[in-house]
């Protein structure tokens, strides 16, 4: 596989090292001279100095082969967005993964169709939410491209849904319960599954159905 990685900070350099160790071909693009010199000592000809949002730099990196994978992981969201758009729309790169540094910019990546994004801040917040659920729902995973999300709902001792079968919950069309985790053991949910206090319920939601699920389970 041929990968182009833009931005040689902690993420870019570690990903490059791992991909090279896995036997992949990688070009890492870094614009800062000092950082570039350090990276060159380790990665030799696999590092290229330049501004990755300049098309001729991407071409020099071989994006037109085309690359199988582009990882836009600089510390600048606008740069990552532009590199992703050029890779996808200009060179038909099928797999583009972009880093979102400021989670408030996630909406812009979504708007411009950059569906595969990673955000350290969002991941950490997700873990915090998992440890301290605030509104009853814990978001486990976003299927951004598909527009679905996987959430977990811890069922408290006094939750209105306790003792009810899934079929009796009157869930709207945008909600499917997929599994119930009881005392650490998962069980695929069916209409006959009975919800009990202490369960962790996993559900798939279409956008905007968080409140409907919360009402159905937690009242």
């Amino acid at each position: 596989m041929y990968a182009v990685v833009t931005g040689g900070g902690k993420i870019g350099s570690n990903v490059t090292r791992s991909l090279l160790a896995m036997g992949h071909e990688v070009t890492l693009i870094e614009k800062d001279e000092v950082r570039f010199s350090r990276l060159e000592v380790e990665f030799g000809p696999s590092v290229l100095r330049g501004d990755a949002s300049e098309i001729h730099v991407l071409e020099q990196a071989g994006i037109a082969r085309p690359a199988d994978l582009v990882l836009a992981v600089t510390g600048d969201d606008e740069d990552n967005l532009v590199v992703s758009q050029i890779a996808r729309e200009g060179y038909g790169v099928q797999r583009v993964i972009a880093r979102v540094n400021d989670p408030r910019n996630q909406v812009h990546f979504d708007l411009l169709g950059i569906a595969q994004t990673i955000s350290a801040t969002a991941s950490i917040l997700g873990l915090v939410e998992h440890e301290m659920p605030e509104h009853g729902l814990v978001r486990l995973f976003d299927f951004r491209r598909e527009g679905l999300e996987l959430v977990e709902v811890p069922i408290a001792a006094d939750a209105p849904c306790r003792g009810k079968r899934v079929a009796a919950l009157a869930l709207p069309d945008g909600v499917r319960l997929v599994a119930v985790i009881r005392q650490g053991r998962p069980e695929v949910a069916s209409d006959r599954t009975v919800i009990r206090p202490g369960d962790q319920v996993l559900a798939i939601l279409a956008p905007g159905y968080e409140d409907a699920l919360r009402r159905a389970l937690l009242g």
Partner: protein
Amino acid sequence: MKAIVIGCGRVGASVALGLSSDGWEVAVVDVDEEALLRLGGWRGRFVVGHGLDTSVLESAGIGDADAVVVATNGDNTNIVVGQVAQKRYGVARVVVRVLDPRRADFYAARGLQTICPTKTAIASIHDAVSVGVPAPGAG
């Protein structure tokens, strides 16, 4: 008619003043409050903040803006802010300054109205050198 100018440097400030004297209602956005000094005794709206911040764009009135000009000193910022104005807020006329000619062409081909001062400079310099001189290879 309402316009928003994002980026109040030499270009943005002059564009804002020009549109304003043409009778447009102009709001100016810049990350630096001091940029207001470029506008002299500006009586229009001035919002301090980044053009990618939707709350900044909204308080500048992007909801009912007829035109948005994006001229910060970052090409990629301008390209992204321009697309947000166009696609998220449906602004009919969005004009974006992009210094890099190739990126300007790339996004122009995708429906963004880009203005590339570098290309204009290249053409003017070429013309200034060539005027009245037969091309050396043409003889």
